[in-house]
């Protein structure tokens, strides 16, 4: 959360190539490793991680098994024509399509269009959700006021709202942002609320005794304690936002990955479809890992169960 922007790509690389739970250690151990060798042992979360392939960390090789297995299966299926290429073109075809889309068909532009929509929607949706979630978490009154309505509305399919949304916001960017933001809102809201409900009463009592103001209570006690819960919903919601960009861009427009997906599906341009799917998947993954690393840093005090 407190990360400077320029550290994010680095974080991502770190996230991918290192075992998640050596992250924190890796930071401190650089400076103390030498001393530790002389002075005794250095405590590590678990000894099994000591001495990885890349020094302090170990690349997450296990995590690469499944993707490569899928890739291999895909390649084999395509090579042996288990699945008609019109539904599953070979990986190399997809790469070619990617290159062509990138160089000749403004793929980068579509990508930016989508990421701008997704980014805005995620931002608005999650900020609103966290603020309202905290408000509802702090006060039963607020929860009771919004609760039944929210719990009713969130079950109603987004698609059913489309005509009303078009009526109010037209079919431009605001409508798309709203469609996505609405979906981002609910998981974050619910997890924030529940995260707060789960803050130990003891800590709230302490805050009362120290006569913390509401705002101090939120900042110093409630948000840190609810953070694990909030972070997991943000990670999830980021994925949801991407998944919904297709619905939103299907709403209107001639650009964006969602449009490309719709078009590719309607016309059975499966290679392009797969290009879009892979891009969205990888970008989503990158976002996810960055958030994971951010979460690890924010929650470095957390003594949870490491598996």
């Amino acid at each position, binding site marked *: 959360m407190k990360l400077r922007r320029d550290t994010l790509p680095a974080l991502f690389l770190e996230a991918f190539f290192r075992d998640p739970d050596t992250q924190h250690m890796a930071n401190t151990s650089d400076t103390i490793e030498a001393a530790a060798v002389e002075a005794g042992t250095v405590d590590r979360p678990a000894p099994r991680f000591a001495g990885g392939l890349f020094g302090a960390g170990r690349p997450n090789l296990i995590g690469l098994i499944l993707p490569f297995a899928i890739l291999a299966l895909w390649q084999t299926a395509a090579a042996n024509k288990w699945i*008609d*290429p*019109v*539904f599953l073109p070979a990986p190399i075809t997809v790469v070619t399509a990617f290159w062509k889309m990138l160089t000749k*068909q*403004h793929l980068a532009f579509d990508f930016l269009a989508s990421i701008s929509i997704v980014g805005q929607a995620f931002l608005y949706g999650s900020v609103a959700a966290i603020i309202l979630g905290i408000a509802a978490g702090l006060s039963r009154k607020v929860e009771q006021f919004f609760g039944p309505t929210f719990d009713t509305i969130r079950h109603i399919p987004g*698609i059913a709202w*489309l*005509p009303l949304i*078009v*009526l109010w916001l*037209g*079919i*431009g960017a605001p409508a798309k942002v709203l469609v996505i933001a609405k979906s981002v809102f609910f998981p974050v809201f619910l997890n924030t609320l529940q995260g707060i409900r789960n803050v130990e009463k003891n800590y709230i009592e302490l805050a009362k005794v120290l006569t913390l103001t509401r705002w101090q209570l939120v900042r110093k006690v409630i948000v840190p304690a609810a953070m694990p819960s909030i972070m997991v919903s943000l990670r999830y919601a980021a994925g949801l936002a991407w998944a919904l960009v297709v619905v939103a861009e*299907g*709403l*209107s*427009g*001639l*650009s964006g990955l969602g*449009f490309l997906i*719709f*078009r*590719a*599906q*309607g*016309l*059975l*341009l*499966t290679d392009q479809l797969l290009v879009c799917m892979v891009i969205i998947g990888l970008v989503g993954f990158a976002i996810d890992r960055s958030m994971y690393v951010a979460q690890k840093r924010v929650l470095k005090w957390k003594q949870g169960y490491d598996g």
Partner: protein
Amino acid sequence: PARAEEVLPSINLQLTPWTVIAQEKGFFKDAFDKIGTTKVNLIASGAADLLGAEAAAVNGGAIAIAQRMIYPATVHRANGLDGVIIWASEPSNRYRAPILARADNDKINSVADLDGKKFGSSRISCYWSSPFEVTTKAGLPFDSRDKQGRIRYTSIDNSAVAITSVLTGATDATTAHLAAGAFAGAWLSGKLKVIGRSPDDGVYVNNAGRVTYFARRDFVNKYPQVVKAFLAARERTREWTSDHVDEAAEIVADKTRVPLEVAKFQITHAGEWEFMAGEPNAERARNAIKTFQAWYVENGDDILAERGLTSAQIDAFIDGRFFVGGQYSIYN
């Protein structure tokens, strides 16, 4: 005399207005029983149609023979779907895919009024190919992904959104098949008006606007008699329906769960396509594809330009066995 063929005991077909009539009136039974196909399952494929999923359904065998407009069918073939067209319709007409605006919008009364206005429709269907021709000929090309034209074209895939957009003013015009389930209601509500139609001598009416049925090549090769029976049943249904409109409308309303007036409209509207006559001549059907492909490529269709079919591919795509003079033709 037909070769000895494998018997197909049951067949999955799309649930459409004509198939429910054929099922209800026993036309399928009459046609299929003879060749041992005793069971016909009608499958409502809903939005799957739109999403290319019906191609997958055909490929996976969930649907044996599927209806598709000739333009997307061609692109599917170009992308490698191993199917053939076993039936194509006669040329379309000007009523099929008109340009619509809001009835009370007095600023827009003709295609010329669309200059600089917003037009929203699905990019992958007749809703694009028909107005594309009209406006291009009127000197008001659509915007495309690469360059700006004279009309702000935007793709809207969800039909409800396309209609809502026109009704709320988010867009100024759209194109739709009035007889399609998704639009009949809006049209019958009287809130829309027609401001332009495809020219009678145009590419859309004569070529790109045709309806086709396609199936997997291996399916067709294995069960040509089934295909023939299917086409025969369709022909019989068409004839019966034109003689019994009210009864047909009741069947359609009941089986496809639409209001009666909508069902009747879908049968009687001049722009309907469910009950069109077939194109008997395979060569004319092939020429239709060749012609619209050339025309669209020439006028800047980015998709066909890249993925066109060669002449030979087109020739093979239209399966002559089911047209006049063919071994399994119903026109003979």
